[in-house]
């Protein structure tokens, strides 16, 4: 049986995604490993998450349907790209965002992740980015729904990936 990461990438390709860039996170290490290993994906390992957003915008303008992978720390880095590029120019992308610090202050993640982990959902709402939390039983339907929303609005949508989902 295919690994969860392989299954996930296959699902994204079935929905038309054909440009991949981002910055790694241990929580989706399985996905980045495949992207790095297989040249057909043309994965660009970006230096920063906002630069990855720019790469995705350029790819969209060139006719592609992009995915940007990032840790939620990178969501903070990407805010200006999201609000002053993608959202005002109608440039869609699927953001795959890991959820470090998911447990918030009561959780067991490293200190630097606690606050972003705690505020991430309201933060995405505030930025008006529709999102779903990765859950294997609803993943196919969620990706389909998010992709439809992305096509209708021409704006970024996000899939939030918690611990243990895409590490293999």
């Amino acid at each position, binding site marked *: 049986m295919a690994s969860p990461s392989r299954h996930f990438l296959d699902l994204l390709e079935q929905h038309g995604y054909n*440009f991949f*860039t981002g910055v790694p996170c241990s929580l989706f290490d399985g996905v980045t490993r495949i992207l790095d290993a297989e040249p057909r994906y*043309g994965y*660009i390992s*970006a*230096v*920063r998450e*906002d*630069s*990855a*957003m*720019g*790469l*995705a*915008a*350029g*790819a*969209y*303008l*060139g*006719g*592609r349907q*992009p995915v940007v992978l990032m840790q939620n720390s990178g969501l903070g880095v990407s805010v*200006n*790209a999201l*609000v*002053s*590029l993608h959202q*005002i*120019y*109608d*440039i869609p992308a699927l953001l795959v965002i890991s959820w470090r610090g998911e447990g918030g202050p009561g959780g067991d993640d490293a200190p630097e992740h606690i606050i972003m982990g705690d505020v991430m959902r309201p933060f995405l709402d505030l930025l008006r980015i529709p999102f779903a939390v990765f859950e294997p039983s609803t993943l196919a339907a969620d990706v389909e729904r998010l992709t439809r929303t992305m096509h209708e609005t021409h704006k970024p949508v996000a899939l939030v990936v918690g611990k243990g989902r895409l590490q293999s």
Partner: protein
Amino acid sequence: MKRAAAVARVADAVDARGAECLTVVCNGMIGRELYTHADAPSRFYMIGSMGLASSIGLGLALVQPSRTVVVFDGDGNVLMNLGTLASVAAAAPPNFYHVVFDNAAHGSTGGQRTISDRVPLDAVARAAGYRSVVRAGAEDALATALTTFFDAPAPAMLVVDVERGNQPGIGRVEPSPLELTSRFRTRATLKTRSA
């Protein structure tokens, strides 16, 4: 040389190469000067997201390898996203031409100094691994550089030294961001004649 004049000279050189060229322009005065000189659907003007013109140009160059992608940038923009010079060099798209108008100042916010007078951006690009790098300090040097620059091995950077100061009464980019996306994407994904 005044920046608006330099922008116009480079734009004319790009336009002389025909419809296969796609231009991504950084935010600020450079875009407004380019728009005022000569607008075209093949130009994507940024109004925000400072620093990201090079990233957008890189993504575009990678997915449209048969097109020549030109990025109009400023020293403040390049410094804000210096890491992407490394991304450009690492990905090494042979169709990526980066033109940096360098006045060692943030022209759009009032001319406050940057640090490009102490950290030469041409040297940074060369060290990162751009295949061709040239610096033009005067109008005749720019004219000479433009005769060969867009045929040089890429990724390539042309740094143009320009004076500080903005042209009074310069217009703004008139099409809305949505219009800019729509017309540029249409142009960028058109099948052009084979080069």
